[in-house]
């Protein structure tokens, strides 16, 4: 049996991140601000081919795109 999130193309980490975000957002105002700071991630990444760096891309956007791709396949 596959879970619904697996069928939607999410990886387990992605699934955890989404659920963690939902929980953070449902916190009370003062606690939420502290918690949301732990959720920020401003990473950029580049994939390399044969010793050449590709275009640097935003990591979160790329992960979202990968999710969409996995879902359709």
């Amino acid at each position, binding site marked *: *049996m*596959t879970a619904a999130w*697996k069928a939607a193309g999410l*990886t*387990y*980490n*992605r699934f*955890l*991140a989404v659920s*963690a975000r939902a929980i953070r957002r449902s916190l009370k105002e003062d606690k939420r601000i502290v918690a949301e700071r*732990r*959720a*920020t*991630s*401003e*990473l*950029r*990444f*580049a*994939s*390399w081919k*044969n*010793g*050449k*760096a590709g275009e*640097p891309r935003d*990591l*979160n956007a*790329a*992960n979202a795109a*990968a999710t969409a791709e996995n879902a359709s396949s």
Partner: protein
Amino acid sequence: MLSRAARPALRAAVAAPSRAAAGPNTAATYATLREIETRLKSIRNIEKITNTMKIVASTKLTRATRSMNDSRKYGQTSNEVFEAAETTAAEADEKKSLVIVCSSDKGLCGGIHSGMSRTIRRLFAEGENFDLVLIGEKSKAQLQRTNAKNIQLSFAGIGKDIPTFADAQAIADQIVNLPTEYTDVKILYNKFINATSYEPTFIEAFSEEAISQSPNISAFEVEDDALGNLREYSLANSLYWALAEGHACEQSARRNAMDNASKNAGEMIGKYQILYNRTRQAVITGELVEIITGATASADM
């Protein structure tokens, strides 16, 4: 911005003593006096900068060590499963290894980034072959010169603040999505031994086969597809651990480096102050001699 500006000045200050020492004996004493003064001023400024950076690093260090201790618990707890299952790296015929190097974007913190690059280079020199995932600009800059062919992914933007679990998850996701299947994944990070010593260390992150083939896995009752999830999650956990510990090491190393820099600058200031006073005295004496000689010469007339 600050570091860029400070570096040439530092270099100039280091090169200075030999030039300035020859100064007082030359004819143009006035010029050297001014030179010494400007140099003194610039060293003072550098000392101020390094001192401030040290203080900033100290305050960041306390937060970083706290997050390191927390994350260590995360990592160790997640490894408990593998210890109980006695998991070892899979013995495959064709090994395809991946090494994740956890450094950061910022420099001015002694040799902690180059320590890791050296470990990687040594492994390559010993004939091992593996692919690289680099986290942080510093390791990228150092390793792209020698091992550009092996780099698969590089991440930037880490090290501004304490690494978050969201960072680790996003990185782990991207690594899991790599097209090649790796038989074993290792994470290289700086192990925090004490405030002055760090050691590049590996954490194993196991592949799915390795987990399912481990001798004691029957102790756990799992559904088949749960193992993949466990693998992804434990990779994120280990990454988070490595990132947080690396961050703590970096801050501590930066604090030490800046402490040393301030100390050196203080020493240099002392030396230049003495030199400055002595030269000033020589100039005054010279002037006095001139005046007296002039006075006696005109009195005789």
